């Protein structure tokens, strides 16, 4: 075997991976915009019928609105509490920062299903009379979103290298509050926005807890899509296409925000 022959294995793996990741969304896309897809390899009869059906459907509109506001509330809570804690840990207490790093792994060890059945028992079964179910969902979801917020902000803070800024402002006699308000928070604004959007889109696509905790009381998008699959697959596909288009656009925005101010490496 010649040494100079280009090594093809990575290219093969790259395209295999691309196929496996691309083919499922393409199939859903094709199904959402076609009359039928049961004869042969390609779908038949291009149509916007299902897309129009979504807008007219009262249930879809209701679930979409519920998902938008409840995931927005969870994301806002995660950014407010998690962002504050992350910032404080980075700037003033290495011990707090290592605790937060460890806490950010907690949602991996206690996965959504386990959280959901625990919450169902304690917050609904025992304290259900005093606790609002929607509030429980927002709180639990915000806790699960903390790793996203912490990782996004940690990356930004590391890049920002806040230490010299803090030292300089203290030498000049400025209070830390002033530094935070006038320098650090404005510089971190893109990172906060990125963390918020990322948390929001992730929360809006959440299924496990919504299905176990809110079933029967508040309908959200993902459980609705799952229910629709059996009744009208085309409509479910159209709903997936619309929500993924929005989520992907917001994702591109996150990508732009996180690469903000990153000096180009030459």
């Amino acid at each position, binding site marked *: 075997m010649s040494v100079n022959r280009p090594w093809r*294995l990575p290219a093969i793996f790259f395209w295999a991976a691309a196929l496996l990741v691309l083919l499922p969304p393409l199939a859903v896309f094709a199904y959402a915009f076609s009359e039928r897809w049961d004869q042969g390899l390609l779908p038949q009869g291009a149509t916007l019928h299902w897309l129009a059906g979504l807008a007219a459907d009262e249930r879809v509109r209701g679930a979409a609105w519920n998902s938008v506001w409840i995931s927005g509330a969870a994301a806002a809570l995660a950014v407010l509490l998690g962002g504050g804690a992350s910032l404080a*840990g980075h700037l*003033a207490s290495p011990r707090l920062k290592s605790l937060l790093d460890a806490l950010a792994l907690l949602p991996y060890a*206690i996965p959504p299903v386990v959280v959901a*059945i625990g919450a169902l028992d304690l917050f609904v079964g025992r304290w259900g009379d005093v606790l609002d179910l929607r509030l429980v969902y927002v709180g639990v979801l915000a806790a699960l979103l903390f790793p996203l917020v912490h990782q996004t902000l940690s990356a930004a803070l590391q890049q920002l290298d806040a230490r010299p800024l803090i030292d300089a402002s203290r030498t000049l006699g400025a209070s830390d509050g002033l530094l935070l308000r006038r320098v650090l928070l404005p510089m971190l604004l893109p990172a906060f926005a990125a963390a918020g959007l990322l948390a929001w889109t992730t929360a809006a696509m959440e*299924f496990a807890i919504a299905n176990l905790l809110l079933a029967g009381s508040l309908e959200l998008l993902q459980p609705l899509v799952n229910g629709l699959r059996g009744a009208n*697959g085309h409509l479910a596909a159209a709903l997936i296409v619309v929500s993924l288009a929005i989520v992907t656009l917001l994702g591109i925005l996150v990508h732009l925000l996180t690469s903000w101010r990153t000096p180009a490496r030459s």
Partner: protein
Amino acid sequence: MSLTPTRAWLAAGPLLALMAAALLLPFAWRSVALLQACMGSGECALRELWADRFYIDAITRTVALSAASTALGLVLGLGAALHLVAHPRWEKPVAVLAGLGANFAGVPLALALTLLLGSQGVLTTLAQKSLNLAGLPLGWDLNSDAGLLLAFTAFQLPLAVVLLTTPVRMLDPALAEAAATLGARPATYWRRVGLPLLAPSLVETASLLFANAAAAYATPFALAGTASPVLAVRIAAAVSGDIFSQPELATALSLVMAVLLLVVIVGGRWWAARLRRSA
């Protein structure tokens, strides 16, 4: 005002309270009650669990499925990351695609796979027709272990590529060039130089991928409903099942799941740190 460590802890207070109340309290509450029952002489759901083949099967299946999808994700992801670093023009589309893939897991993925590979799926029908010509039966079932493995690999891949691209980019290309100049084949370079250098990142990525797969609920549930044989669906079915509720059993299963995930994540970090130190 100056930012002292005390003030930092105060600022983090609400978050720490939220994490404790939302994640630790409900889990610990049930687990402590369960362990108390097991320490005493009363009925112990953990002991019942070990006696029941059905749940042992769910646990071993989940472990095997997670391990296999992690291995596939790691190999394909590493190859894709290598290609990506060598061809930077694909970086932007891949970033968008990885984001799409991350959000596509669960119900959308299940719908897509049913359309493509379900019993009436496009590709299944096509394969059936061509096999019928040759007089062969088609032994494919999306709800089989192979189908689940395909679904799991599909949602592991975007994560694997995202996690592996950075460490691969840090690898010094001069090493590969030097190895090639000295006459080493790519395989030799990777066995002797590349993989040992990447080992800590590979271990860390593998532990995250394993945890991601073992915790997956939406995809297997959307594919096969409460009949799905994986641990996460069994846990949920034990409390919201079709027949009757078995909260102690659900607690026992979640304890098994949490211990499994904790061992994998902490073990992975510890092993990666050891590899980094010895490198």
